[in-house]
């Protein structure tokens, strides 16, 4: 695990920081280089959206063994952009396409050889 790499991503990981274009109202996540367009402003996204699709992994990559099996999803945020995240606090049977979800902050992966705890966004079903 690379300390500086995770530190650089703290805005996106902890606050779901993306960008809003003040001229067009368009949102994007993650933030990109604004280039020649001065209208892209950094904003924290609401963290609300719905499941566009999902899968439950049983064959998992190294670093994620302790979570297996776990669900991942493509989530369409209410501001428009889509992102990829794990779902949490729900069983496979509860998940469906279109399900409303909200962001929570959780530990993302095993501590690894250097013991670094990496936190970031996951999504859970909206609690009514």
């Amino acid at each position: 695990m690379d300390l500086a790499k995770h530190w650089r991503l703290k805005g996106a990981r902890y606050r779901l920081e993306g960008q809003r274009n003040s001229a067009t109202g368009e949102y994007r996540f993650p933030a990109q280089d604004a280039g020649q367009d001065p209208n892209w402003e950094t904003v924290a996204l609401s963290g609300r959206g719905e499941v566009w699709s999902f899968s439950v992994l049983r064959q998992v990559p190294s670093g994620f063994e302790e979570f297996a099996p776990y669900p991942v999803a493509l989530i369409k945020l209410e501001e428009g952009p889509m992102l990829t995240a794990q779902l949490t606090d729900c069983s496979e049977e509860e998940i469906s396409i279109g399900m409303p979800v909200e962001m929570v902050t959780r530990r993302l992966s095993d501590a690894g050889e250097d013991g670094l705890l990496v936190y970031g966004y996951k999504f859970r079903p909206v609690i009514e």
Partner: protein
Amino acid sequence: MNNVYIIGAAATPVAEHYNRTLVDLAREAFNKALNGIDPSRVGALYIGNALGGELAGQSNLGAAVASGLGLAGIEALRVEAAGASGGAALRQGYLAVASGAYDLVVVLGVEKVTDKLEEKVEASIALATDSDFEAANGVTLTSQWAMLMRRYLHEYGYEADALAPFPVNAHANGANNKGALYRFAINADKYRKAPMIASPLNMLDCSTAADGAAAVVLAAPHIASELGGARIRIAGSALASDSLALHARRDPLHFAAAQRSTAAALAQAELSLSDIDVLELTDPHGIAAAIALESCGFVERGQAARHAADGGISPTGSTPLATGGGYKARGDLLGASGVYQAVELVRQLQGEAGASQVADAKVAFAQCIGGVGTTAVTHIFVKEA
């Protein structure tokens, strides 16, 4: 640009080659493809490989393989484009001969996977995703294909087993290929009962990564005439890219890179899709073949599953696919796959494909994809009399 011919093609069997190194595998494919041509005539070596550093513990593969083949001194380098590495290497070899820089080169695809445990292999393959915003969240390529599959079934109203005809066809053909990893047939009933890997993808809809090497010899027209043998012209060659992250695309069920490289390769070849007699696609899962067939334009959006169920992808169908077993039954060679595709299509164009032979095949289409639609390389091969 000069015409470029494939004058030799060969591959090792796909297997868990525990007793052989990456260079051992490369040597077998190289020698078989040269088939008696003096190795000193090889001007350059292009090596398609996705994960040599991560899985074989060896990078700098140009020098590693060239010296292992006794060719130290020649131009040799690795070409990496994840799962599209083999196709990308083929394109580099093609450009080298088409430009006149060399009149004979070898394109080698090689991957050594099975020295590592499954979790390490999954994590290494996932490096082809956006590492900060996809892999960091525990996503693998298999799970991304699974999410596309679920959405595909949802949008077009298919049942859960609608994509079974793809692996069933792949296994039926793989049973006829002596070099395939899996040489047995499966059926839709077994498919329905298979355990999940990444839902809704089950074990019989997921390829197995394995070891192997494939090689093709490319030559300028005068060398092809001098040496005789196969005479397969590379009529079209194109590579296109798309956004790295799947979630960044406005229409994830359409692969713009596949469409773009197909259009460019066909335009160069002055051919249309209806001219294609046989094809190879990146088909580790049924959904991958379905999206490619639709994105390239072989069938309408949402129709690929129906097309496959109607026999459209069998050796007697309108788009014969995976005649050597595809990624599912031949085995998934990762960065070597694009060269294995070329070897299979040469076999078809030479009329040497046995029970999976497509009758009178003259024009072949190879497309390999890296990541989930991120890089697409398309080649058109034409058999000349």
